[in-house]
C-alpha cells in the first residue's frame, strides 16, 4: 500500500508566544520548531506501522521553506521511505491543501494521513480540503485504524464518545491521540534518513482567500485570590456571588 503523510512544522510546545511588526508577525526569535505532535506521534507512526505489516511505501510531504528540511529528516528517521517538500511558505490552509492535492492526484495513494490539527493555528482544515480536492472520503480525529485487505475499520473521536466507521481505500484520515504510540528515532534510523530521497517541488498557483491581519495576547489575569483551605464555604460564596459561575 502507498501512504502519504502530511507533516507540518510548529513552535515547540513551551515556546514563548510574542509578536513583532506592530503585532502582525509571529516573533520566531529564540523559538525552537518541531514536527507537529499529531503528525509525528500518531499519523506518521501509524503509517509506518501499516507499511511494516502490509508492505508498501510511506511518503512524507511538507509545504514549507528549506529550513523545514530538519523536521522532514526526522520523519525519514522515524520510518518514512522518502519525502517531498513543496517549496512555498504555508500562508493559508487552502493554499497548503491545494499544493498537497496537486501532488497527490496522480499518485494513487491508498491513504492520505494528516494530524488532527496543528498546535499553532489550530485549524483542522487542511485534511478536509485535501479530501474535497481529491473527492475522497474523509475521517477526522481518528483514534484507531485497522486494515483488512482494502477495508479500514476506524474509530473516530466525537463529543463524549466514538463513532465506528468502515471504508475502503482510498481515503483521507486525520490522526488523534490513540492512533499509535510515539516512536523515538534510533541511531540507525537517523543514519539511514540522511540517504533517503528528499525531493523539492516548486509550487503551482497558490490560492490565498484568508490572511491574518493582527495578533493579540490574552489579557493578563488579575492575580490569584487565595482562599483559606479550612474555609471552603468562602470559596463557594465567591463562586456564587462574585464570579457567578455556580
Amino acid at each position, binding site marked *: 500500500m502507498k501512504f502519504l503523510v502530511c507533516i507540518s512544522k510548529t513552535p515547540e510546545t513551551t515556546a514563548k508566544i510574542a509578536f513583532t511588526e506592530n503585532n502582525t508577525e509571529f516573533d520566531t526569535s529564540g523559538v525552537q520548531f518541531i514536527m507537529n505532535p499529531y503528525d509525528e506521534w500518531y499519523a506518521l507512526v501509524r503509517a509506518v506501522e501499516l507499511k511494516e505489516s502490509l508492505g508498501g511505501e510511506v511518503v512524507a510531504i511538507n509545504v514549507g521553506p528549506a529550513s523545514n528540511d530538519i523536521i522532514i529528516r526526522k520523519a525519514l528517521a522515524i520510518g518514512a521511505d522518502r519525502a517531498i517538500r513543496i517549496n512555498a511558505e504555508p500562508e493559508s490552509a487552502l493554499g497548503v491543501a491545494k499544493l498537497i492535492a496537486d501532488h497527490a492526484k496522480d499518485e494513487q495513494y491508498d491513504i492520505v494521513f494528516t494530524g488532527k490539527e496543528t498546535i499553532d493555528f489550530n485549524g483542522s482544515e487542511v485534511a478536509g480540503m485535501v479530501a474535497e480536492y481529491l473527492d475522497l472520503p474523509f475521517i477526522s480525529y481518528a483514534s484507531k485504524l485497522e486494515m483488512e485487505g482494502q477495508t479500514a475499520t476506524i474509530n473516530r473521536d466525537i463529543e463524549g464518545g466514538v463513532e465506528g466507521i468502515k471504508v475502503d481505500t482510498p481515503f483521507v484520515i486525520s490522526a488523534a491521540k490513540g492512533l499509535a504510540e510515539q516512536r523515538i528515532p534510533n541511531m540507525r534510523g537517523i543514519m539511514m534518513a540522511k540517504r533517503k530521497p528528499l525531493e523539492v517541488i516548486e509550487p503551482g498557483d497558490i490560492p490565498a482567500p484568508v490572511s491574518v491581519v493582527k495578533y*493579540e495576547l490574552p489579557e493578563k489575569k488579575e492575580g490569584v485570590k487565595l482562599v483559606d483551605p479550612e474555609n471552603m464555604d468562602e470559596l463557594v460564596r465567591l463562586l456564587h456571588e462574585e464570579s457567578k*459561575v455556580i
Partner: protein
Amino acid sequence: MSVLVFAETIKGQFKKAAFEAVSYASKVAEKMGADCIALCLGEVNGAGNLGKYGASRILNVNDGALNHFNSQAYTSVIAQVARDIGAQVIILSHSSNGKSLIGRLAVKMEAGSVSGVNALPDVDGSFKVTKGVFSGKAFATYEINTDVKILSLMGNSFGVEETGSAGNVEQMSAEIPSSRLQVTEVEVSEGTVPLPEAELVVSAGRGMKGPENWGIIEELADILGATTACSRPVADSDWRPHHEHVGQTGIAIRPNLYIAIGISGAIQHLAGVNNSKVIVVINKDPEAPFFKAATYGVVGDLFEVVPRLNEALRKFKAEA
C-alpha cells in the same frame, strides 16, 4: 442576503452547540442586514425550536442517507442549499463534525474559511473575525476576501440566546452523492455533558496518586453537575479514559468554571484550559505554576480540601 447556519444533531437530537451556532448566526445576520436561515439534516426532533434562537427560516433535508454523519454527503447538501438561498456566510459549529466539514465546504464553495472563531465578525468594509491560536496562548484576527465566507464557532464562546419563538420547518430535497463510507456504530456516554460543551469542569492530575482516589472528584462533579477532565499523564497511565485529557495535545475547552486539583499547571496543560472564565486551583505546593493562571487558589492537601469543598457545596445546594 442570507447567513446559513448548519444546526448539528446527534441521533436526531440537537446539540447545545447547534443552539449556540444559531444564536451566533442570527447576530451575524443582524449585523449584515441579512436573513438567518438554519439547516438541519436527516431525521430531526424539534427542528422548529431553532426559531427560538433567531432563525427566520428553518430548512430540513430529511433523507435516510443523512441520518449518520458523512462529510462528503453533508458537504454536498449544505453547498446545494447555500447556493439555492444565495448564502454569503455559512456558519458551522467547531465540533468533530464541523471540523470535518469546514475544509471540504471551503473547497466546494471556493470560499475563505476561518475555523474556531470566538467572537462576532467585523463586517464594516472588509470581513474580519478573530479566533484563538497557539493553543489558546494568543488570538489572531483574520480577513476573508472571498464572496462567500465560512466560519466554525468555538463552543462556549458566544453562548445560547433565546430571542424568538419556534418556527415552521420547510422540507427540502437535495441530491445526495453515494459514499463508500459506512458508519457502523455511534457510542456516546449518556447523562454527562461532553467536555467541549461543558460549562463546569472538574479536573484532576497526578497529585491524586492513583485512580482509586477519584471518588472525591466524581462526587464533586456530581454535586456541581460538572464534567470530569484530567491531565495528560493521568490519561497516559490509564487512570482515566483518554477522552478526558485536556491541554495542548488533548481537548481544548473554555468552560465558565474549571477546577484544577493536584495539577501542576504545565504550559501544555494551560494551553487547553486558560480560556476558561474562572479557574480554581487546589494544590499543596504554593509555587505550582497553575496559581499564576488561577482566579481563586487554595493551597492545601487535596485529600482534605476536596471533601471539605464537597461538604460546603452540598450545604449551598441544599439552601439554594
